């Protein structure tokens, strides 16, 4: 009797301890590489790893010195500006062009609406692999290699962005639009003064996801902007880490850390929006 009564209780106790063990273990695995990177930056260079395995930071000034050195003595700062511009222009374009189209697809009916929308949604199934080389060749023909428009413009018609915005705008009550129309608002007024402000949350989510994607885009800048003046942070980080860079590990990790700072800050501020955006695209896909 006692055995039967005891089994479920021990089962629960084992799980309540086990989940903490597993959660802490997973935390260590998730955080350790990032923590290690930070510690390599904030430690005295050349200190043998046997004495200091870089599991805690030892020298703040040494880390700041390396950051200062990278920003002033290498082309890193320029790459930072290029990457930020690339991200900001892409965000502006994707949200503006996408919201204009989504406004129509979600709230109005016109001949060809279904056809055009299905065509764009179908493109979500087409892998990047098939378009990247021909898109590169087109960009080259336009004379846009090593230019900001070459980086930005081909990525502006984001099917994913359109999908996200249409999903959101569908829930806007038509009555509001009709009421505005009766008050004499023009078609563009309705878009600009009513639908855009109501879609604020979706636009912010899209902007954040676009930032993460652009900042982390490695393949497109690698081929379309191969000149050092147009290097993005991704490319510079790639060069620092390449087998022929002759940089020591602490300098390389400083370059890596600097590249991680903007997305980490974004995450700290917009955590809920990022997580909701991903969860939403998953549950509705």
């Amino acid at each position, binding site marked *: 009797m006692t055995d039967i009564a005891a089994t*479920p209780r021990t*089962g629960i106790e084992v799980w309540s301890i086990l989940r903490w063990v*597993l*959660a802490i273990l*997973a*935390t260590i*695995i*998730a955080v*350790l*590489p*990032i923590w*290690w990177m930070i510690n*390599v930056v904030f430690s005295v260079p050349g200190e043998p*790893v046997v004495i200091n395995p870089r599991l805690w930071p030892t020298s703040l000034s040494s880390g700041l010195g390396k950051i200062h050195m990278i920003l002033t003595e290498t082309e890193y700062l320029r790459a930072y500006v290029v990457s930020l511009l690339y991200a900001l222009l892409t965000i502006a374009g994707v949200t503006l*062009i996408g919201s204009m*189209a989504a*406004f*129509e697809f979600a709230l109005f009916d*016109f001949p060809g*609406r279904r056809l055009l929308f299905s065509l764009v949604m179908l493109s979500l*199934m*087409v*892998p990047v*692999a*098939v*378009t*990247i*080389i*021909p898109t*590169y*060749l*087109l960009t*080259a023909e336009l004379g846009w290699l090593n230019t900001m428009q070459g980086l930005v*413009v081909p990525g502006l*018609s984001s099917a994913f962005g*359109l999908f996200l915005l249409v999903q959101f705008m569908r829930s806007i009550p038509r009555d509001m639009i009709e009421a505005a129309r009766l008050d004499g608002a023009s*078609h563009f007024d309705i878009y600009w003064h009513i639908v855009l402000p109501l879609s604020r949350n979706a636009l912010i989510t899209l902007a954040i996801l676009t930032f*993460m994607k652009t900042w*982390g885009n*490695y*393949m497109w800048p690698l081929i379309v902007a191969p000149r050092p003046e147009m290097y993005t942070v991704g490319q510079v*980080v*790639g060069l620092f*880490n390449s*087998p022929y860079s002759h940089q020591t*590990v602490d300098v390389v*990790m400083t370059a*890596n850390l600097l*590249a*991680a700072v903007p*997305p*980490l800050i974004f*995450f700290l501020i917009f*955590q809920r929006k*990022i*997580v909701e955006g*991903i969860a*939403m695209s*998953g*549950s509705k896909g």
Partner: protein
Amino acid sequence: MLKRKYLPHYLMVAPFMVLFTVFFLYPIVSGFFYSFHKWNAAQPAVFIGLDNYRTILGSRDFEKAMWNLATYIVITVPLGIGTAFGLAVLVDSFTGRWAAFFRSVFFLPVVLPAFLAATIWRWIYTPNFGLLNMIFGWFGLPSVNFLNDTGVMLYSLIAVDVWVSAGFNMVIILAGLKNIPQELYEAARLDGATRFQQLIHVTIPMMSPVLFFVLTYGLISALQVFDVPWLLTGSSFSNYGGRRGALLFPVMDMMGRGFGGVKFGEAAAYGFLLTIVIMTVTAGMFTIRAWRERK
């Protein structure tokens, strides 16, 4: 008159549709055209029929890349989703502040750009004095050459891959878990189901639409893996894929032929071959789902 009435609508969708046509539809068509031509972007394209496709299908690099890809996908997709599912269930077992804390922490690697994950892990994998080999040393294990031992390289990649992607899938799965009605668990509990039985008979069946999405999305992105193996092996267009091509994957092979070998026709053909593979896999997934739903 009809056109007038609809003009504002067309004007609003025009910027998107024009860019979409120029930078998405046109490249697909032109890529298809180039795939039957020999072209290096400097001289005029020469029509060569199916030669590009024949060259690729007969090359050893293609065979190696496809073989690597198959092995990689069979391991990394189930392992990644399994890990994500485990993490989601784990986070779900906590409440309030701790649930939020663990969710954020497990999501942290997703926040980093994939190129950074690769460059950080490249150093963690360093032989002898790398962090991982040092930890191995504490337990008396021998040093492993993670990125140069052809028998280990694929698993080193998979570990990074799971580290990068688990948090992403976890968030999607977690949202699905929250949508399961609590009454189902209560009913199962009344029937005397253990926690494990609840997982098998309630959670997993209720989660199948979400798992289907995660699996399909995971497969499509795994088929196009590029950044992480490219950077882990320190690749460039003249030398890529790591030692003996142990981390050579189709997209890397395609990019190498295009930008290293300046054979854009061949690269375009490669893109179409890959698309056929990806579309087949995707169509297969949807067929399986339709078949299961009918049962």
